[in-house]
């Protein structure tokens, strides 16, 4: 059984630790874990650097949470509290029947 949480199309999987070589991303107090490609409904964590930080490796984002933080998405999804830990960020997938291909859900 694999634990996951999802916030709209964004999927967060708790993992044991950051992968080796993951690179810390610049911190500006507004961590966008899943950017909205169309309507600006980003999934984001407003926090201080000591509370949580984003990392990246091979195109995959990881969120390292040190103190409980809130994951929000303006007007679209309820706020969820993320407990300390490391989360691998992904997206739900869907089937595109027009092209008969799998793709990641985009907002």
């Amino acid at each position, binding site marked *: 059984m694999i634990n996951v949480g999802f*916030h709209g199309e964004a*999927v967060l999987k708790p993992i044991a630790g950051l992968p080796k070589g993951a690179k810390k991303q610049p911190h500006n107090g507004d961590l966008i874990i899943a950017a909205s490609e169309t309507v600006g409904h980003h999934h984001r964590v407003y926090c201080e650097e000591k509370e949580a930080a984003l990392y990246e490796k091979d195109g995959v984002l990881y969120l390292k949470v040190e103190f409980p933080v809130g994951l929000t998405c303006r007007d679209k999804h309820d706020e969820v509290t993320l407990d300390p830990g490391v989360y691998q960020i992904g997206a739900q997938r*869907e089937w595109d029947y*027009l092209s008969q291909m799998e793709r990641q859900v985009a907002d």
Partner: protein
Amino acid sequence: MKRKIEKLTPEQEALLPVYRDRWLGIGLATEQEIDKESAKKAIADVYRCAGMEPPKYYIFLNNPLEGAVGATLLKGAQVRAQVRDQVWDQVRAQVRDQVWDQVRDQVRDQVRAQVRDQVWDQVRAQVRDQVRAQVRDQVWDQVRAQVWDQVGDQVGDQVRDQVRDQVGRACYGSHDASWLGFINYFQEVTPEVKNLEKIFGLQSAARFCGWFWAFRDACIITSRPKAIRMKEGRLHAEGEAAIEYEGFKVYAYEGVRLPEKYGAVHPNNWDPKWIEEERNVDIRAKLLKGVGFERWLQETGGKTISKQTLIGLPYELVERQDRDMGRMLFLKMKNPSVPGVYHVEPVAPADWIKTCEDALNWRLGADSPDEKYNVMFKA
């Protein structure tokens, strides 16, 4: 023998996008009203560049459909006049095709293939993708389709075929931008390439004319479109024409030409029943995209094969058989954060997906029923 150009300098390479953009601009230019004097001068130059006298008569028409019909009528006049002389001969080959052959050969003789390919790819091909593939070809298809629908019934197959043939006998004015831009690059950026002057008339016509039909003593000149609407390089408009001339319109959705009965209606108002009625697969796919799976399923139905409460929320797995897309599965779920809102999410039509839980696991990444997910939170 003079050496061929072997390589572009960095400065010359930097100019490739400049010429691409210039000729994209010319190819996609629109006008509310044709500048007749400038158009006449340009056409006179087209004839002079081909070594011919400018035409005696200039006939201005609104759009390519009128042009094709007008050219057919002039061809009829030619048949009658042949007894006296050849003044109504159609001369497209001389004013367009042969000029192109000649300047192309000049470039071949003076520029190495590698450099030609570079300019071809970065100027001509990119302009062609939009101006020719999107605009000219769609106008071409629409004129032929409309002739088929409208002209045939009124005057018979023979005339209909003649009008359709005239679509392929036009010179395309602004819509010939791709190869005119290709030559223009060598004219201005590599002045050592000589003998390209003959293209000048056609380049001038591209700036002032839409499609035109060249006869020995007369030229039918049509206007450029009043509007061209595109999205991400493809013809696209919602509830209005993607290419609009006076008296002639082309409707398109993401590059696929639509009949007026769909194109003139905004996709928000498209009737999901049209998806079932439409036989053309490409058009059907665009109708489906415009309507959206949610509205399509909601209004035309499907079979619920599983109902489950997952993470405290009611889910339904809906199955549907479609003539083009085969078995389709959709997970219907309630938005946990916005009351009264449901989502319909397409799921892969895998045989092992039989329940809502299977479908949800697939959406999270599972590729077999053995992969299970425990959802800690959902919002």
